[in-house]
């Protein structure tokens, strides 16, 4: 490359960096802002929403946590998402093992059946599932939320885990088989431990997706003590009086767990996302 060319590319890299940094500011600013605005009282919030708070109001958080019932909501979310996560990994990897490793005629067809689930918008099943569940007294219960969450999380889990199981070397299973290992044991003792990364990645994705889910939770749960986080948030907005500073505290409470999970495991989340799509 000639000298002028090098200079030119240096300038263009600088421009790229400026552009990317500006964009990063657009991404981070609202998140930083919501954290410090959640520490203001309502009055200063209305006068100067963009200024830093004079005295941090921790009360906003305690109010949102107790009176706003966000404490219970967080527990509910954790319970629902946790149980869904465990069941999803177990049931999903069982099916994935059968599809990816075992030999049967219908495995391709069953896989397609599961994968069509990725294309179905949840809205289409909302009404039949709701009416069925309310007959079975499953609405307003955590189990009623876990079942559809679990079902909707299965396709991506099965998809990613099938890929993982298929990539395991054959010899492992052959030697286990020679040693008299049953198919169930080779699933729990060989396939699962060797696919820890896959389980971890799919687990993260399932957890994040269910943690943020709003529509199903809103429709299925009307009991205040059983609401999940995203649903409880809307309680802070009323048609006539919205308590903004407490609403912001609530927003922070709702997004902090995912931000922490993301900061810790961003690489795995990214890997899971791309793995889910690349093979498609």
């Amino acid at each position: 490359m000639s000298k002028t060319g090098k200079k030119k590319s240096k300038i263009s890299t600088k421009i790229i960096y400026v552009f990317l940094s500006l964009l990063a500011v657009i991404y981070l600013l609202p998140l930083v802002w919501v954290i410090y605005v959640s520490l203001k009282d309502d009055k200063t919030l209305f006068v100067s929403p963009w200024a830093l708070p004079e005295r941090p109001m921790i009360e906003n958080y305690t109010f949102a946590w107790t009176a706003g019932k966000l404490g219970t909501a967080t527990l509910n979310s954790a319970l629902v998402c946790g149980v869904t996560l465990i069941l999803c990994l177990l049931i999903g990897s069982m099916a994935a093992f059968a599809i990816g490793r075992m030999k049967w005629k219908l495995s391709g067809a069953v896989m397609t059946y599961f994968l069509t689930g990725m294309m179905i918008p949840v809205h289409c099943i909302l009404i039949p599932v709701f009416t069925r569940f309310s007959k079975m007294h499953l609405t307003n219960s955590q189990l009623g939320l876990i079942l559809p969450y679990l079902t909707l999380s299965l396709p991506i889990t099965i998809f990613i885990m099938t890929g993982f199981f298929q990539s395991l070397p054959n010899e492992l299973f052959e030697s286990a088989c020679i040693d008299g290992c049953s198919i169930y044991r080779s699933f729990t003792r060989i396939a699962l431990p060797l696919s820890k990364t896959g389980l971890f990645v799919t687990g993260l994705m399932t957890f994040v997706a269910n943690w943020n889910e709003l529509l199903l939770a809103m429709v299925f749960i009307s009991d205040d003590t059983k609401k999940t986080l995203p649903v409880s948030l809307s309680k802070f907005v009323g048609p006539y009086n919205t308590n903004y500073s407490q609403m912001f505290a609530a927003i922070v409470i709702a997004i902090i767990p995912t931000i922490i999970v993301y900061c810790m495991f961003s690489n795995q989340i990214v890997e899971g996302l791309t793995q889910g799509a690349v093979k498609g």
Partner: protein
Amino acid sequence: MDKLLRDKKAIVVFVAPAFLLFTFVLFIPICQSVYYSFCDYNALTKPEFIGLGNYKQLFTIDRTMKIALKNSMFFLIFSVVTQLIAGLILAALLTNIKKGRDFFKNVYYLPCVLSSAALGLLWMFVFTPKLGINQILAQFGIEGPLWLMDTKGFIILPMWVIASVSLWQYVGQSMMLYMAQISGISSSLYEASYIDGCTKAQAFRYITLPLIRPMVATAMSLNAIGSLKFFDLIFNMTEGGPNHMTDVLATHLYQQGFKYFKYGYASAIGTVLLVMCLIVTFIINKFVKVENYEM
């Protein structure tokens, strides 16, 4: 070994839980939903078959449906086009820089994992008439528009605002998918092209773009289905208001089904949504997807 892998009983044990869940919570409800869409059915009555009645009402009388269809189509086109362009640009820029690539990547992807319900509330405040952005504009003597309440024009301002927020939130996903695909392209292809006197822009046009085309199809269908499903942000930013002007299919369905308890009618909206998802996926796969190139 082979016998073990063909063990019918084990296969059934492994697949049955997922299969049963899928059938009872997903497959049967979809069939039911399609059936309900031909029924007069609400919270107090049993479903009663009325043929195309719901659809007739939906497409001829219902004014909100027209708006919702228009808004959903706008949303679909907007997010597919802008996510494709913005996602590709970001991916191309990020693969070209060395320092800080992971930082920028993680920052842009961050909103994707956050709750859109929470972010919707946050942006609702930013765009309230007297506070937020308008207060900053006022300091410069500019009177900001009513971001979320203006109703002028074919595609009203609130829809543009919401669409931009959704672009902000989800562009990271497209970017990530494209980056994954670009990083899989062998660098020898680029080296060869540079030796032949190819510029970076040309290399992008003639090497990168054709090679990531399969991923473009995948990302586009994800975006398209995602935009049709779109609910959380709108619900928390405007709740479909003012006067149903920002309703999309999903919010319309929610209101009809769970505010007015018109189950049959809401099912018809759901069926329209399902059909749209299938058509869009079909079109994208037909026209964008190509056989994988050897890489």
